[in-house]
């Protein structure tokens, strides 16, 4: 360090009360501004392209986005998602319970289920269920290895849509089971011990004490699964079921306008995924009650606070 002249060192020698008056200046970051501006330029270029490139063919997009056939296809997609989610998570909960049970036989069966359904590609499973009638022409209810009381033709019982729902739900159940099991394992063991020490019945322990706490860990992963199932339903186009992606393909096969119709599908997928994310946000807030970290205000609450604040300022 070079020696300072008395003049240069002066500010440090000043008495404490005048040091307090020195202005504090945050560190400047000019490159941050440059990077931000560059990103904005790229984004503007992309949006400009969307607007003016005739290849996007927005008139065709407008023709089809709310057309009856597309709306019906969106309905089928939502139906597949709903059935897949509800049945998948219901079965997943059962499998998770089996894997957490005290019985080694049940634990092994549950493990094997998860192993099998995670190992086989979904598309293979779907085509397999679609061809179930080849293996079993009739499905019956009766005593195992004994007499049958009633039986149905497999094709009557399981149409294309049924096969798709079955395939999606069975596949989803394997993942749901692991997500639910993970959530349950994350609940502190002391919680179950306290519930047991209080003599709370077993089912109530699970329903009132463990599950609500496990939900915090389950929800983000479950929402991921629902969203990925929602988009994943497009895979059932291989079974010629009129869901969104299949329908879009049918239309562009006829009209040759691939890009605008892909945009029709994209916009629907994005819109509905956004809706699911919103639902996730509020459900997660509900299950966060009592947690250490305070739930931040919702966008709606923030808006209301801002409005009342500005009113108060004017008053």
């Amino acid at each position, binding site marked *: 360090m070079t020696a300072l002249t008395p003049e240069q060192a002066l500010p440090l020698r000043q008495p404490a009360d005048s040091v307090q008056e020195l202005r504090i200046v945050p560190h400047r970051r000019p490159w941050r501004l440059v990077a931000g501006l560059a990103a904005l330029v790229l984004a503007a270029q992309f949006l400009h392209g969307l607007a003016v490139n005739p290849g996007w063919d927005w008139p065709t997009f407008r023709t089809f986005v709310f057309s009856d056939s597309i709306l019906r296809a969106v309905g089928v997609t939502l139906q597949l998602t709903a059935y897949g989610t509800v049945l998948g998570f219901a079965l997943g909960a059962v499998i998770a319970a089996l894997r957490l049970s005290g019985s080694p036989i049940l634990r092994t069966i549950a493990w094997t289920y998860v192993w099998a359904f995670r190992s086989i590609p979904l598309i293979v499973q779907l085509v397999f269920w679609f061809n179930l009638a080849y293996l079993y022409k009739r499905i019956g209810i009766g005593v195992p290895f004994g007499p049958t009381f009633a039986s149905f033709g497999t094709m009557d019982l399981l149409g294309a849509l049924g096969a798709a729902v079955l395939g999606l739900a069975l596949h989803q159940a394997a993942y749901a089971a692991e997500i639910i099991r993970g959530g349950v394992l994350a609940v502190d063991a002391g919680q179950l*011990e306290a519930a047991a*020490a209080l*003599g709370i019945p077993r089912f109530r322990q699970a329903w009132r004490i463990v599950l609500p706490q496990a939900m915090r860990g389950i929800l983000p992963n479950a929402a991921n699964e629902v969203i990925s199932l929602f988009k994943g339903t497009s895979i059932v186009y291989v079974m010629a079921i009129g869901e969104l992606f299949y329908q879009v393909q049918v239309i562009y096969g006829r009209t040759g306008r691939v890009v605008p119709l892909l945009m029709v599908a994209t916009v629907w997928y994005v819109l509905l995924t956004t809706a699911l994310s919103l639902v996730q946000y509020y459900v997660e807030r509900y299950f966060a009650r009592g947690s250490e970290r305070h739930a931040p205000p919702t966008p709606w609450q923030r808006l209301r606070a801002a409005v009342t604040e500005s009113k108060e300022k004017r008053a």
Partner: protein
Amino acid sequence: MSSESATAMVEVRGVHKRFGRLEVLRGIDLDVRPGTVTVVLGPSGSGKSTLLRAVNHLEKLDRGYVRVDGELIGYRQVGDKLRELPEREVLKQRTRLGFVFQNFNLFPHLTVLENLVEAPVGALGVSKERARARALELLERVGLADKAAEYPRRLSGGQQQRVAIARALALEPKVLLFDEPTSALDPELVGEVLDVIKDLARTGTTMIVVTHEIGFAREVADTVVFMDGGVVVEQGPPAQVLDDPQHERTRAFLAKVL
């Protein structure tokens, strides 16, 4: 039943417990008379927490038995065997035993009031209104009536433990079991919890308290039990065990903690 055990609220006889190759309890005998406070002292690893957990069947026994108010806990006698009871029956028995944990173990997703109402409604079938009224009385008693609507994690450790004591009391148990109730607390919060326990002692609640608080033992205990290596080394009134210990191990332990 012998005449001696007829007077005991809690009767522990020949209890053995091992975890793998480690024998944690090696033949424990203990009698707790109704309305008295028994304080269990001992170095960590001496088996005192395991003993407490064995009393309400949070731990299964390898040998011996526990009776509370004359009733076998966790088992029923069939000929010359003790057969473990189905879980439903064990849970019913536990409603007569209050247990307070070192780490409180309050239910974080339920409010303080809901924590107190859960077991009476869920395990005993008490009506919600009655359970609420009783819960508010108990919160008053531990000085936390104004916290009924709070979630447990918004409370201090001392307040949480007082809620946990109120939660155990909500079942109106015959015996209260405390497993190191102040060990997880900051030093300045220990007093408020001990005060609540002392207050319960004055009103004649039967209690077994595992603790490291020698001062508390001296003040409140009717009987002090010193455990080491899975056995009861000595027991008696605090004046005897704490001030005139007969065994070398007791003397060594007290010399370290006092």
